[in-house]
């Protein structure tokens, strides 16, 4: 029972892990370059969750000092993840731009077809 | 001039020569003059160092301390003095000979040939004067790299193959075995300086000493101890002046000189003889002497035969080092000098024959003796010296080695030396015999004259040197004794 309790009690972490693995799996398994990027984004998003989850304290409020509240959530992870989101967006944008250029140069975005074309030439 | 300055000059002179030679790329006469002037200057400098060293001085100069305790430094001691004298004096002869040979054969790329030669000589002098193992290793590798272009001079596929073997064996052994041995020595002794009496005494067990000795002996591929000798016959693809000076004098002698120096100054004679770590090497060297002589007998190619003869003769030096007595080391040192004179004569002759007739095989030499009397007479003298018959220099080294072997109770070794001399007679004198006494293959020798004067003069001089060495052995002994007896 205790295992189940642990899992249920940390359901947010379970979701994080699932997203992380799913994202990584897509990156590795998919041959389509756009899908790879989607996987990569999911992978990065899971990390956002990893940071934000522990920052939230049940019953805690936004950290505005007020005599009425004694429990505050940690704001720092949010700030960090804002930065990480920017980085993630930039990566995704650059990745998609590259895929577009690859499509122009090779006429396909399937990895194995690209390798075939490079081998032919 | 202060001896310290002379050391610096001795190392820099050939390198400066190497820089100046390409300036006269289009003017061969001036270019060769530069080579000769450089060689002459070098000899003059080295001879000037002789006085202070004989007087017991050990001039030294440190260029730069690379790592604390590890410096690029040079120090002249008697063995290095002897080796540098041999190398620099034979370089002059060889340079004259090269002019005759290279022009006689209309060889291409002569400028790079002379440049590499000068660099190789500079490395050799540096190696001879090295104060510590690091400096020696540096010069050792520089010598390998600077002679590689000489080995592949002909730029044929065969030359490239030989060059690869040359480089891989010499660099391979030095990186794989020699360098770890140096690192181990540093780790054990905390210094790499050549010190009379050795630096490893009391620092390692007999087993470690034995293993280290093996690493050194096999790691110094230039010493051509079997089975690390394959590069030497392969290197014979080079033009003969290269084989003559580098593969009979500078390179191979650098190898055995290194072995002798390491036995004397890194291990120390006492350490070796008390731990018995040297016994295996005595038998290995003896085996090499015989085996290489037998292979030489079977070779028809003249230069290949001489190459195996060199392998065998180098093993004498290693044997002397392995016996690790004062007498045997003296024999080794003298063997370095006398074999150099003898073998360079033989190579000069082989080259002269090639220039005059373009013949490379022993079986093609029948009856040539009368057409090329100087060459073959010199060949005879050189052979006799290598065999060890009085009144030729080679006698002394063989004599001392035999005596040292007998003294230390290795009677088998004495037997080996005697058998080997007989084998030498077989593979060297048979060549002279064919040339003088057999009738020419195609009836008469027509159109064959002596090689160019520039070839004949050096080979006559070096043959003469074999005789002179016999009578002047006292001088060499006096020099070498300084290394073996004085405790400084």
């Amino acid at each position: 029972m205790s295992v189940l309790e642990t899992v249920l009690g940390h359901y947010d972490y379970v979701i994080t892990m699932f997203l992380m693995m799913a994202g990584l799996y897509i990156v590795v398994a998919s041959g389509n370059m756009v899908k790879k990027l989607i996987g990569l984004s999911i992978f990065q998003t899971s990390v956002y969750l990893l940071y934000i989850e522990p920052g939230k304290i049940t019953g805690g409020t936004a950290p505005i000092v007020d005599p009425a509240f004694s429990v505050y959530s940690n704001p720092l992870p949010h700030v960090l993840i804002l930065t990480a989101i920017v980085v993630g967006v930039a990566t995704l944008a650059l990745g998609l731009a590259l895929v577009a250029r690859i499509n122009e140069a090779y006429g396909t975005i399937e990895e194995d077809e690209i390798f075939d074309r490079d081998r032919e030439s | 001039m202060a001896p310290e300055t002379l050391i610096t000059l001795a190392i820099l002179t050939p390198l400066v020569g190497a820089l100046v030679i390409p300036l006269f790329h289009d003017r061969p006469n001036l270019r060769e003059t530069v080579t000769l002037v450089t060689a002459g200057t070098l000899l003059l400098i080295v001879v000037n160092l002789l006085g202070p060293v004989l007087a017991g001085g050990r001039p030294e100069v440190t260029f730069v301390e690379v790592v604390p305790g590890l410096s690029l430094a040079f120090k002249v001691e008697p063995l290095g003095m002897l080796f540098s004298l041999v190398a620099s004096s034979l370089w002059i002869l060889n340079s004259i000979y090269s002019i005759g040979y290279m022009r006689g054969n209309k060889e291409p790329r002569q400028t790079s040939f002379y440049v590499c030669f000068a660099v190789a000589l500079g490395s050799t002098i540096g190696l001879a004067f090295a104060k510590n193992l690091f400096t020696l290793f540096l010069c050792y590798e520089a010598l390998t790299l600077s002679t590689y272009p000489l080995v592949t001079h002909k730029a044929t596929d065969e030359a490239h193959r030989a060059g690869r073997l040359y480089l891989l064996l010499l660099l391979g052994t030095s990186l794989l075995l020699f360098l770890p041995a140096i690192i181990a020595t540093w780790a054990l002794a905390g210094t790499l300086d050549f010190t009379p009496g050795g630096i490893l005494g009391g620092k390692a067990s007999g087993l470690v000493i034995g293993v280290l000795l093996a690493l050194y002996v096999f790691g110094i591929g230039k010493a051509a101890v079997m089975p690390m000798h394959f590069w030497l016959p392969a290197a014979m693809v080079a033009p003969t002046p290269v084989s003559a000076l580098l593969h009979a004098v500078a390179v191979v002698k650098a190898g055995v000189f290194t072995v002798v120096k390491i036995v004397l100054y890194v291990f120390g004679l006492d350490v070796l003889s008390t731990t018995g770590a040297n016994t295996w090497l005595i038998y290995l060297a003896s085996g090499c002497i015989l085996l290489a002589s037998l292979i030489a007998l079977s070779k028809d190619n003249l230069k290949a035969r001489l190459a195996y003869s060199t392998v065998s003769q180098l093993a004498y030096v290693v044997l002397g080092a392995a016996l690790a007595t004062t007498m045997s080391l003296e024999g080794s040192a003298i063997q370095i000098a006398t074999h150099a004179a003898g073998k360079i004569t033989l190579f000069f002759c082989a080259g002269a024959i090639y220039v005059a007739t373009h013949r490379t095989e022993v079986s093609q030499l029948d009856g040539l003796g009368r057409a090329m009397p100087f060459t073959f007479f010199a060949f005879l003298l050189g052979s006799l010296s290598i065999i060890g018959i009085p009144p030729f220099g080679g006698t002394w080294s063989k004599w001392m080695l035999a005596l040292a072997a007998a003294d230390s109770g290795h009677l088998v070794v004495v037997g080996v030396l005697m058998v080997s001399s007989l084998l030498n007679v077989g593979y060297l004198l048979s060549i002279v015999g064919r040339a003088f006494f057999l009738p020419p293959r195609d009836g008469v020798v027509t159109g064959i004259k002596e090689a160019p004067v520039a070839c004949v003069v050096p080979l006559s001089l070096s043959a003469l040197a074999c005789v002179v060495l016999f009578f002047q052995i006292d001088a060499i002994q006096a020099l070498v004794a300084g290394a073996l007896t004085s405790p400084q």
Partner: protein
Amino acid sequence: MTAVQPHLPVLQVVIPLLGALLAGLLRRGTSGFALALAVSWLMPLIAVALLCQVLTGGPISYHLGGWPPPWGIEYRVDALNGFVLVLVSTIGAVGMPFSYRSVALELEPRQQAWFYCMYLLCLTGLLGITVTGDAFNAFVFLEISSLSTYVMIALGRDRRALLSSYQYLIMGTIGATFYIIGVGFIYLLTGSLNMVDISARLGAAWASQPSAVIAALAFVTVGLSLKLALFPLHVWLPNAYAYAPSFTTVFLSATATKVTIYLLIRYYFTIFGVSIDFRALPITEVIVVLSLAAMFIASLVAVFEQNVKRMLAYSSVAQIGYITLGIGLADQAGLTGGLVHIVNHALMKAALFMSMGAVFYRVGTVNLKDLAGIGRKMPITMAAFTVAGFGLIGTPGTSGFISKWYLALGAFERGWWWLVFLIVASSLIAVVYVGRVLEVAWRREPSPAIAEASDPPLTMLVPIVLLAAATVYFGFFTEWTAGVAGTVAKTLIGGLK
């Protein structure tokens, strides 16, 4: 000067960042180059000033925005990263003149100013990673340098450059994300992102939750190993180096991997090492084994490579193996060897890639079969290649020998005498792959295809010769390489638990 001096740590990063913004507004390649050159030449001055200050007066702590650590971001310069700052900025300064002709030839005019913008961003990122004392800030700089790197690679002429860039983007992002997961664990465990603060708090975390600390260490290790191309996480590197524009390859090979290696050393020796005995964990053995695999397998692949740039790229993987070997040995001499090889390898690899860049500039190809006799046509370039090649082999008299000397001594210190033989044996493979090029370049008759080739213009030739000369210089005069590295290693090893 006195007004500027306290702000040197942040200027080291802010100046190239502003330069990048400015370059982004420029349209002409020449003006972009002038700007990049000015910035690149300013950087070593700041870096050297910082290093001198650190060597005499101890670590410098700079509080960004006046917020004291551990709340604010701290830029912290000690001997270790001062040393890396000097290296990165010097490579940038020496290499910059080379870029002018090379970029003008290989890139379309409209792309050139952008290229310099990306270069300056990359420089910002690399210097930022080095100078920062904040774990998350390092991630941001890591991504700044990576994103600009992807662009610099994708600008290569060959369409395979796009593919390599994409592959690097995928691998690099996974690496950076692994790193940030590791940092996340550390943050959860210690509640801090300041490196000094973390190292002080990690000990308590180790006592209560050792497995979480190990997980953090593992994530950081794998993430950084991807970025520094530790075998077998190196697969992105050979293609990226081979198809990128010449100058990109020169700059990346000499700096990008080196900075990531620095970050790994930072984590191992000043964060984890201070609070837990990481030498007792199997991680050092794993790193030694992977380093050896890199040294042998990548070198062997290099032997059979026909494209010289690719060959050099595989050689880089092998040489990175030497550096990580020093980290894995984690003793005084070994770590000194690893640190000094960071510098030595950067200098010699930059010289090698530059000479190939010069060959490409003149001949338009770097395939080995087309380079027969190139030594006769471009003697100075190839002489520099030869000297730097000897450095790769580790011939005595070159800086490579010094690195290997210390590594071998480090192996002895550990009592691993067999490792000494492996270290020297791997140099022998370098003899083969360097020798192959040298034989073709010097010992073959020039082919008609390269009949017109000659040494490149001075702006290219001078950096090449300088770097090759440095390979020899640091083979004899080691006060500023092995000397400083030894001091750094002593501090690092001394601080270990």
